């Protein structure tokens, strides 16, 4: 195999890639690769004996097959290798999106990292993770904190190591047109994440460099009522929200990582504050949400009163 042309450092890993990934920070100095990304054939029909199989992904011990129709098939294995097999006519921009999302998520799972579906925002010497399902408002909230001067460590794929530290991913947020407008971010200057969707790559100007311990995790929810709610989750109750807000939790069983993952969740549960925050689902009321979180972080002693 040719030596990969591109070398990056993201999620605390050195990544050597045959595909250019311009959003990622370059690797510094001569380093050995933790992860190789190459282009090659990936079976059209999937794995031989998958533990779990849908038409779009299949998983077995240490191996994940992912099929994004008309874009690419991916094979992610052993926490160190991603093979990409593009469909003819697909564009690199779309391929990158799934490489840096689902595929990196699978790599991190395979490396025994706890991957939360969330964004990590720096507060002092620690960070706070905002987790939730797709569309919960994680990136919008992170962008609002960024505008207030906070560094962002992760967007969507949030890697938390065994010591409870978040490794910075790469300095970019994905924002929908409406969210950008709400934040007074001009999208004329930004690139779409794909030509097909009005969602933009918003580059962050003060990239986070340090691995920081997680002080608190908020699970973001919304409801059809007018009021905000914030509810502290304690003791054994912390376990299920952490499990349910794990990135691509559906991969784990087939990868043979379920037991290990439960261990990671319970270890993290012992280290962090966990709360559920529910906002009205009509009108984002972003400033109120930010103020409410700041107030709660002051109460928890995570930011100075």
């Amino acid at each position, binding site marked *: 195999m040719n030596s990969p042309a591109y070398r990056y450092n993201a999620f605390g890993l050195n990544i050597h890639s045959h595909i250019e990934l311009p959003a990622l920070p370059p690797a510094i100095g001569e380093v050995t690769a933790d992860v190789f990304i190459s282009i090659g054939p990936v079976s059209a029909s999937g794995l031989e004996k998958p533990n779990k199989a*849908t*038409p*779009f*992904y299949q998983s077995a011990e240490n191996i994940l097959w*992912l099929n*994004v*129709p*008309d874009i690419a098939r991916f094979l992610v294995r052993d926490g160190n290798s991603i093979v990409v097999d593009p469909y003819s006519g697909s564009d690199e921009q*779309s391929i990158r*999106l*799934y490489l840096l*999302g*689902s595929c990196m998520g699978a790599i991190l799972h395979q490396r025994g990292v706890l991957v939360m579906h969330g964004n990590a925002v720096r507060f002092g010497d620690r960070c706070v993770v905002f987790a939730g*399902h*797709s*569309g919960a408002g994680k990136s919008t909230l992170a962008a609002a904190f960024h505008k207030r001067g906070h560094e962002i460590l992760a967007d969507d794929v949030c890697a938390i190591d065994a010591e409870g530290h978040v490794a910075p991913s790469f300095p970019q947020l994905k924002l*929908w*047109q*409406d*969210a950008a*407008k709400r934040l007074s971010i001009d999208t004329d200057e930004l690139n779409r*994440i*794909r030509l*097909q*969707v*009005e*969602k933009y790559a918003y580059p962050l100007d003060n990239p986070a460099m340090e691995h920081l311990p997680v002080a608190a995790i908020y699970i973001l929810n919304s*409801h*059809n*009522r007018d009021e905000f709610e914030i509810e502290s989750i304690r003791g054994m109750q912390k376990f299920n929200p952490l499990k349910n807000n794990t990135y*691509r939790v*559906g*991969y784990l069983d087939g990868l043979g990582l379920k037991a290990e993952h439960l261990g990671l969740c319970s270890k993290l549960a012992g280290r962090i504050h966990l709360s559920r925050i529910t906002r*009205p*689902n*009509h009108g984002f009321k972003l400033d109120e949400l930010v103020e409410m979180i700041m107030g709660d972080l002051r109460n928890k002693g995570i930011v100075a009163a």
Partner: protein
Amino acid sequence: MSAGIFWLASYPKSGNTWTRAFIASLRHEEPEEVDINALHTGAIASDRGWIDEVLGFDSADLDHDEIDLLRPAVYRWHADEAEEHGYHKVHDAYTYLANGEPLFPAACTAGALCIIRNPLDVAISFAHHNHCTIDQSIANMGNPDFAFSRATKRMDNQLRQKLLSWSAHVESWADADEIDRLVVRYEDMRHDSLATFTRICSFLQLPDDAASVQAALDKCAFEKLQAQEQEKGFCEKSPKHEAFFRKGKVGDWQETLSPEQIDRIINDHHAVMQRFGYLDADGNPVPALPLEQIAA
């Protein structure tokens, strides 16, 4: 093993949620009344989470048409995995994709219960639901391209749902020859509940003896659902909507709509209204002709 999905298909505000409450009562043997905030009959067909769980990647990075192309395979997989029949609400019309495949594949469909309601009453309820004027609601029901969650500048928890016009929606399901269907009218569900819900149960392969059907009907009487919403709220209500279970009344249009509004709806939908007994032989609007007087 494929158990097959029963689609509970309706234009919005036609009695779908009441039907789900009924099914929940019947299947779960709720003690006194059904809990409207825990209707576990099955996800709505357009639930993004239900789709994403099978994809293993985010539908959020695809456009609406790209997502629709993936939906048939997702439904087939869910049906294959399920050990028993699923009962899934759907507001999408029965449409075909660019590749000619139906959005709801026959192979994973056990049947479609098509619930229809007099469009003169739907117009009023739909206006409340969407927090718009009745005139706007009538325009939406006449719009052949009407869709829910069609925004492209933000993301919704629901996938885009092509409703089409009210007439096209009703006919898309009623005439979907590839799948088994039962068409029921909301008016018959209200006024001839036992007989209508017995037919529904037989079709959906649920217990259809009179005692079971009546017991389930008693537990989810409209007034009970309404009282429960007033007391505890309803998680499926749209935020601006005053109440989801509002009147549920048959023939409300006679007091609420202006003659011009009635004319507009009849003008837009007369053929389908005639077919399902919402116009009499002279073309005049009626709440619902007796079933035996219509040929549909």
